[in-house]
């Protein structure tokens, strides 16, 4: 790939009563443009993702031009479940790689209602009885996949708590994070159970936030920036027959690898690097179990090895494999349209060495990000300085 990132911007994640999703997106865009030392009229195209915007519960991404400036640029709305941001970024890279544009912006935002996601069964191709029966909850899947994984690979409840404690600890070092209160493993284990084995603090919450990334061609990047970050791999995969996926009324006994395994493997191939080359990692921690499973699914360890790695503190900011340095979804919540771009934002800061209190030591050069979600898809991104 030949696409560079020359600007990143964020609106903090959390709950912001009275601030609309598009208003948050405008802040993220302004910050990204300032970071790139560019202006909105410089943007040749935009890709924007928002699940609520697509549902009509808030303004859709292309309406942002009303606030950012009516320059006539092509603005494409992108919706692709939990890989919305990854898909928008992927399409932007493709457009630049194809020579269609030199510079553009990818925008993601969301402002979800409070409480668990409650998708309409029909929208996901499911029949009404599935929702009537009380099974239309993504958290049930994450808990059941985690429970099975713990059974097969000997992962303890203590390790689930260790992941949640670490991500909240990292979030406390991130001014833009939603949750900045640290909790001990004991507090996390003693919290109300939501879906066994996941307690209240082991599951992320839908939330609000926005992120924006200015992308450009290699030639443009050399003109614009002394410190571009290169998008060396960006792959998206959906579920194959036999993978254990969210909101599945049945599963075949014959098991297949998850879409994360497929997306990560392909992403490493495209980028020409291996998991052991990666210095900083952002993984989809919808829940503590997901982060643990995604460590292995992305190729960073063997299945079951996480128990030892977590006990050693390997995934801490100071560890050999720092994971979710900005607090991940657990500390930031999940505004779906923005979530994947938040990971990219964090990787860019880390690779530039501007991560502040949460900066990974040792001059990190290779970053990896992964999102996963309904209806069984994954997007992986590799960034290299």
């Amino acid at each position, binding site marked *: 790939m030949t696409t560079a990132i020359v600007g990143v911007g964020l609106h903090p994640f959390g709950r912001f009563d009275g601030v609309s999703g598009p208003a948050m997106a405008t802040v993220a865009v302004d910050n990204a443009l300032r970071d790139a030392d560019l202006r909105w009229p410089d943007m040749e195209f935009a890709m924007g993702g928002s699940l609520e915007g697509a549902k009509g519960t808030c303004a859709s991404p292309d309406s942002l031009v009303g606030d950012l400036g009516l320059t006539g640029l092509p603005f494409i709305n992108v919706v692709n479940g939990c890989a919305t941001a990854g898909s928008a970024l992927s399409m932007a890279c493709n457009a630049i790689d194809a020579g269609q544009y030199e510079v553009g912006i990818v925008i993601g935002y969301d402002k979800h209602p409070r*409480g*668990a996601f*409650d998708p*309409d*069964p029909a929208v996901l191709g499911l*029949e*009404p*009885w*599935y*929702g*009537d*029966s*009380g*099974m*239309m*909850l993504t958290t*049930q899947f994450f*808990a*059941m*996949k985690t*429970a*099975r994984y713990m*059974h097969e690979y000997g992962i303890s409840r203590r390790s689930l708590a260790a992941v949640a404690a670490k991500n909240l600890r990292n979030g406390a070092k991130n001014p833009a994070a939603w949750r900045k209160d640290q909790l001990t493993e004991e507090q996390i284990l003693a919290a*109300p*159970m*939501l*879906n*066994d*084995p*996941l307690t209240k603090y082991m599951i992320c919450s839908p939330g609000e936030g926005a992120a924006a990334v200015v992308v450009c061609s290699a030639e443009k990047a050399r003109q614009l920036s002394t410190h571009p970050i290169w998008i060396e791999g960006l792959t998206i995969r959906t579920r194959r*027959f*036999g993978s254990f996926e969210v909101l*599945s*009324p*049945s*599963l*075949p*006994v*014959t098991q297949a690898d998850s879409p994360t395994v497929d997306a990560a493997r392909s992403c490493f191939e495209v980028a020409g690097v291996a998991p052991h080359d990666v210095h900083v990692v952002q993984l989809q921690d919808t829940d503590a179990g997901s982060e643990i499973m995604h460590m292995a699914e992305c190729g960073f360890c063997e299945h079951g090895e996480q128990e030892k790695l977590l006990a050693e503190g390997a995934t801490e900011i100071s560890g050999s494999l720092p994971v979710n340095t900005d607090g991940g979804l657990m500390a930031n919540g999940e505004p779906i349209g923005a979530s994947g771009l938040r990971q990219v934002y964090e990787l860019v800061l880390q690779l530039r060495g501007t991560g502040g209190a949460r900066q990974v030591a040792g001059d990190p050069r290779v970053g990896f990000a992964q999102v996963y979600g309904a209806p069984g898809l994954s997007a992986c991104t590799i960034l290299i300085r």
Partner: protein
Amino acid sequence: MLNETERHVADAVTAGTPDAPVLLASRCSACGTETFPPKATCPNCCSKDTQVVTLPRQGVLWTYTTQEFPPKSPPYSVPPDRFSAFCVGYVQLGDSVRVEGRIHTNDVTHLRIGLPMELTLIRLPVNDTETVVTFGFTPVEESA
């Protein structure tokens, strides 16, 4: 309180009798894959040659969880003021398919992966006059 009406939400995917319900699945004539609920196209080999079959009533628990906060209603038929915690799991029926369903048990602490389970119909009171009926599984040792 007398429940005057029963709404059977899973009629389209169940058969058999109230005491011995069975689940309907599709079986692919080309590769043998069984899928619940029935699908016109086999998700494994994409063949359109599938037929509806019934699944075994008994199996073993493959994984499970609890639901300890009230799901939003809709889509859940039971409103939050009638909510009580329940279990959900995947039960392996025969040697080809694992089906997700409500787990009806008197003792959650007794559940474990590998426990023998049996298909049953479960009743969910949604208000004073209406009960929703759906399928679920209960430990064989608890079934009458």
